[in-house]
């Protein structure tokens, strides 16, 4: 499988993009030239210079450094959110599909009810109730998204459960837990990875979107969506203030998406 | 004996790595005779029949050789010319009838469209023709069938409908590729009897199968294929009573029939 990924151009490009963003996030302190939160009113809207590679924003903060640190926020929120989502939805989706019958039907109805509310609405009301803060936005995103992921996992498990080897494992005396952990989960893992790597892109966009709307992340934090939001008034006079974070969001989301989509093609070449 | 179809030096190779899959296959199909092609999986029997029908994807397979049908080499005809021959003069009945039908279209409509594509008939005439032909296939409640979607019918019924469609255009040759393999024995028996009736009308058949029982029941001539080559050919009696190659003997021996059974 690793070989096939390296052969696929789209996957390699996606992988490189992901790697660049991850590199930036990890080594942000070494790449950034200034403290991203340092305000210097004298440098308001400074032009490109050695000190400010991409200039300064309306409060005289170094745009370049803010963008670099922004990678930490994007990945730092999206990846933990995704891991928690993965654990919750895999557990619920697998258990529901495996037990089946009435339990599964009730779970499905519950999911349907949940899915009737758009994620945005759920997040809005949760952030409203919990208040601002990175942790709260993470909770809100998990709460609004788990059902979508759980549904997908459930459908993978339902498909897998019908296959002959599951019956065969029962016959050779495997317990239900053995069947789930040794047979079903390893077999849905590839599809699962594809779904989650495209999911990262969605979550990054979602979080940037929420912070653009002023939800969850406090003003002044160098998060890309928040940067976009605070640059809004300068759309006509300083469009670059909006374009830079926009490019970073696009780049990151595109990287994960390209990789995820390529992975999907590799795993199901018949295009299912 | 006049030959209806003559296959000369048919070679099929994989485009990807030039690996030959069917090697120097030559045989004739006599007018009004049933030719059985027998072989196990990987013998190239299905590819051979598909090559005759020009059904192989040119991007995957290179087909060389001659398939002479009424003075024309089918392999060198243009797409348009081929469309005129296929269905009209040469029909195919496939192993899996489910995939041969459009799942979203009622049987009646599919029959009418097939007939109208080749014959200058009105919708009503085509429909009546279809109904008559289905009745001949031992199918009951024909108008109900005409009004159903493929997935609501059983495999045996679909197979019979496919044969009916193949017969509607009164072709000269029908190629049946493992057409009865997936069917119950009782349905298989009905369909093989139908093949013999088709033969009585002077139509030739190529019956591709892995089962010597099918050959024993319907074929006049037999070719035995293994690994892409014809290893033995002859009339059905020569093959059964006097097989020359070890492989044919092994195939014959692999049948499980109890000896004392007599068949009508």
């Amino acid at each position: 499988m690793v070989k096939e990924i390296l052969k696929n151009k789209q996957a390699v490009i996606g992988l490189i993009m992901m790697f660049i963003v991850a590199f930036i996030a990890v080594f942000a302190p070494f790449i950034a030239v200034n403290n991203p939160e340092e305000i210097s009113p004298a440098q308001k809207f400074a032009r490109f210079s050695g000190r400010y590679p991409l200039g300064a924003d309306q409060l005289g903060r170094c745009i370049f450094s803010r963008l670099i640190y922004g990678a930490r926020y994007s990945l730092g929120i999206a990846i933990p959110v995704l891991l928690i989502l993965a654990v919750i939805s895999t557990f619920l989706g697998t258990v529901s599909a495996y037990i089946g019958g009435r339990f599964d039907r009730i779970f499905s109805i519950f999911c349907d009810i949940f899915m009737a509310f758009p994620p945005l609405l759920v997040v809005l009301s949760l952030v409203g109730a919990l208040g601002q803060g990175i942790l709260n936005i993470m909770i809100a995103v998990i709460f609004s998204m788990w059902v979508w992921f759980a549904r997908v996992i459930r459908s993978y498990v339902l498909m897998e459960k019908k296959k002959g080897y599951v019956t065969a494992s029962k016959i050779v005396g495997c317990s239900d837990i053995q069947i789930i952990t040794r047979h079903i989960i390893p077999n849905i893992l590839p599809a699962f990875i594809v779904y989650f790597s495209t999911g990262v892109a969605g979550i990054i966009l979602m979080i940037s979107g929420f912070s653009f709307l002023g939800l969850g992340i406090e003003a002044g934090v160098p998060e890309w969506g928040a940067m976009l939001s605070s640059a809004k008034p300068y759309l006509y006079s300083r469009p670059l203030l909006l374009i830079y974070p926009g490019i970073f969001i696009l780049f990151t989301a595109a990287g994960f998406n390209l990789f995820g989509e390529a992975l999907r093609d590799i795993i199901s070449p018949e295009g299912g | 004996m006049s030959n209806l179809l003559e296959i000369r030096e048919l070679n099929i190779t994989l485009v990807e790595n030039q690996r030959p899959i069917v090697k120097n296959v030559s045989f004739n199909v006599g007018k009004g005779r049933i030719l059985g092609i027998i072989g196990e999986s990987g013998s190239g029997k299905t590819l051979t029949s598909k090559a005759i029908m020009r059904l192989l994807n040119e991007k995957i397979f290179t087909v060389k050789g001659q398939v002479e049908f009424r003075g024309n080499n089918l392999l060198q005809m243009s797409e348009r010319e081929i469309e005129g021959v296929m269905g009209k003069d040469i029909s195919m009945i496939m192993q899996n009838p489910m995939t041969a039908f459009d799942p979203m279209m009622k049987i009646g409509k599919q029959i009418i469209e097939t007939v109208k594509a080749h014959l200058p008939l009105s919708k009503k005439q085509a429909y009546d023709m279809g109904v008559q032909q289905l009745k001949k296939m031992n199918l009951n409640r024909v108008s109900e069938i005409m009004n159903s979607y493929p997935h609501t019918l059983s495999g045996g019924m679909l197979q019979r409908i496919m044969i009916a469609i193949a017969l509607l255009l009164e072709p000269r040759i029908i190629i049946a590729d493992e057409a009865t393999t997936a069917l119950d024995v009782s349905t298989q028996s009905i369909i093989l009897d139908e093949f013999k009736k088709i033969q009585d009308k002077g139509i030739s058949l190529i019956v591709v199968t892995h089962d010597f029982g099918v050959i024993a029941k319907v074929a006049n001539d037999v070719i035995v294929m293994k690994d892409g080559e014809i290893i033995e050919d002859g009339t059905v009696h020569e093959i059964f009573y006097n097989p020359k190659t070890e492989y044919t003997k092994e195939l014959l021996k692999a049948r499980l029939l109890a000896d004392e059974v007599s068949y009508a």
Partner: protein
Amino acid sequence: MLEVKELCKQYTGRDKKGRKTTIQAVDNVSFIVERNKSYALVGESGSGKSTLARLITHIEMSTSGQIKIDNKDMSKMGKRELRMKRADFQMVMQDGQSSLDPRIKIYDSIAEPIRNFSSINKKEEKEKIENLTQKVELPLEVLNRFPHELSGGQQKRICIARAISVRPKFIIFDEAVSGLDVTVRKKILDLLLRLRNELKSTYFFITHDIDVAMYIAKNILVMKDGQIVEQIENIKSFSDFKHEYSQMLIKSLLPKLPSNTQRK
């Protein structure tokens, strides 16, 4: 050893108009399986024979009726007891490839029942697995491969090795040789006959093929529309079949030799 009493299985579904319909897949089936005899259950598609296999192995629950193993009601067994009982009751399914987990190497697939039902150390386990592989006449290299790298016949042999690894008293073969090439089928049937003498297991062979049934078993049950229509002990020839459905099946069998009219 196994007693099936008035076993029924219904499926409820909805028809096109949304009305509830029930299908009686297994309808009031009773029979007894005695130790060291061989049984075959013959039926066409839709006869309910596979459902019956799944009921006996408790993969599915019956709607009513009883299945007794060694005079113990299966439905009264606890989950754990039932799981351990599976060591006595093995099943080989139709599709070899799908019965093997595609991501697990052959070695571990064969090891699975051994690990589940016994506690032996790694060295004994390895010895046992290699021994089993030889018993099903496969080279030891296959142990290091994945299921899709093997041929259909090899996969089937692995499934057999898996089933016999725990020395079961009873093995159900659900269409276990259909879909294989005839020569491969013959070899596998002969292998099973040899293994039976060695293992002293009781075979319960489910098949649509009367030839296969007669080849492998002395006691034959014929199933149709969920019911057992005929049960014959110690069958000697086709003339032992009395029920008209069985006779129809026999009449549909393909001939062993070509008829004289084909000679031309």
